[in-house]
């Protein structure tokens, strides 16, 4: 009971409530490596010869993804480039960038830092009006409340990642999304009735539009807590800090709710994900919006309307 289920070592670092399995430090690290690589094959996330752009924030999730995918790079199966986005969040982002750079360097992976300021002319802090420039009121016509920082952050980050992926000739964009993130997204979008976003959730993006680089989530079935444990057990250099804007988001509320539920129902996140993955193909078939994606008249990126989301925010501020 108190020894490693795999090797018998008495010093265990985890007892998985959902499976009853106990693991020592070494076997735990090994089991995560194996699980991630197994999922990568199962969901066909990567192909030999892929150039993978890893969205590397320096946080535990992206650093763990970088290190595990690097084992495929060492075997010359894939090529990698790491990209860190500097949203411009004072007192938070600086350390993440430094840690991201250190990780990329230690593995010998090319690393680029791209900033909101250089691409969009303003930092996230400026967008949110934390600097007194008056861009603060992010309310748009018809909105009763200002939009949350996460909305801008997500839209602008996706824009940059897609642009850099094209520049770098990357065939995949890998992110550190974990089981908690994924279950939060499923629940959030379902509860908000946001079916367009709901049917896009999955291990791999499936846009038929070639101008969008395929996005993959190799850590999608690993609980956030286990990624944290892995980072500490493998002694990785990770940025352990919370984003100052994450504060009052709906995502956080949902996240707290699921974590609370998980305490007494340790399989709840797995079953939410499994159930969703089963109904998703049907939802997708029935509910995928028709109509072709055009081009944003401002930046040339793919867009549903005349402007892409990023440009519609930018024009709203001009």
């Amino acid at each position, binding site marked *: 009971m108190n020894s490693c289920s795999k090797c018998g070592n008495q010093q265990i670092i985890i007892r998985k409530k959902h499976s009853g399995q106990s693991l020592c430090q070494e076997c735990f690290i090994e089991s995560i490596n194996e699980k991630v690589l197994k999922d990568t094959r199962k969901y066909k996330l990567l192909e030999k010869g892929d150039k993978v752009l890893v969205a590397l924030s320096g946080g535990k999730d992206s650093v763990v993804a970088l290190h595990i995918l690097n084992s495929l790079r060492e075997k010359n199966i894939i090529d990698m480039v790491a990209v860190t986005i500097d949203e411009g969040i004072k007192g938070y982002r600086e350390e993440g960038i430094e840690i991201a750079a250190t990780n990329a360097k230690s593995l010998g992976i090319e690393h680029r830092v791209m900033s909101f300021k250089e691409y969009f002319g303003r930092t996230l802090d400026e967008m949110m009006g934390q600097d007194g420039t008056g861009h603060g009121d992010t309310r748009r016509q018809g909105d009763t409340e200002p939009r949350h920082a996460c909305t801008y952050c997500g839209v602008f980050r996706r824009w940059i990642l897609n642009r850099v992926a094209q520049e770098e000739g990357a065939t995949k964009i890998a992110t550190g999304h974990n089981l908690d993130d994924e279950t*939060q997204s499923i629940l959030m979008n379902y509860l908000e009735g946001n079916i367009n976003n709901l049917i896009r959730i999955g291990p791999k993006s499936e846009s038929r539009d070639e101008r969008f680089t395929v996005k993959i989530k190799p850590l999608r079935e690993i609980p*956030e*807590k286990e*990624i944290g*444990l892995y980072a500490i057990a493998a002694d990785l250099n990770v940025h*352990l800090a919370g984003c100052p804007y994450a*504060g009052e988001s709906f995502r*956080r509320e949902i996240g707290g709710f699921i974590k609370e539920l998980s305490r007494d129902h340790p399989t709840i996140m797995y079953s939410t994900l499994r159930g969703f993955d089963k109904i998703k193909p049907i939802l997708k078939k029935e509910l995928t919006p028709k109509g072709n994606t055009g081009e944003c008249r401002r930046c040339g990126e793919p867009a549903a309307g005349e402007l892409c989301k990023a440009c519609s925010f930018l024009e709203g501020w001009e």
Partner: protein
Amino acid sequence: MQVKVIFGEENLTEDVPEDYTIKELLKKLGIPSETVVVKKNEAIVIEEELIQEGDTLEIIKVIFGG
């Protein structure tokens, strides 16, 4: 008995009863156990681990908001 607790920037000395577990200590300190990894004398331990006199416990927060 007394144990040393390191949590972020904080260095505390805590008085705990015999046969106290990590889980109980976290509860006492008001730290949700699902957000942290705990090292006892520099080795990662599970929350059922018993605490002994003179132990140094490092509590590392790995999950932030959400």
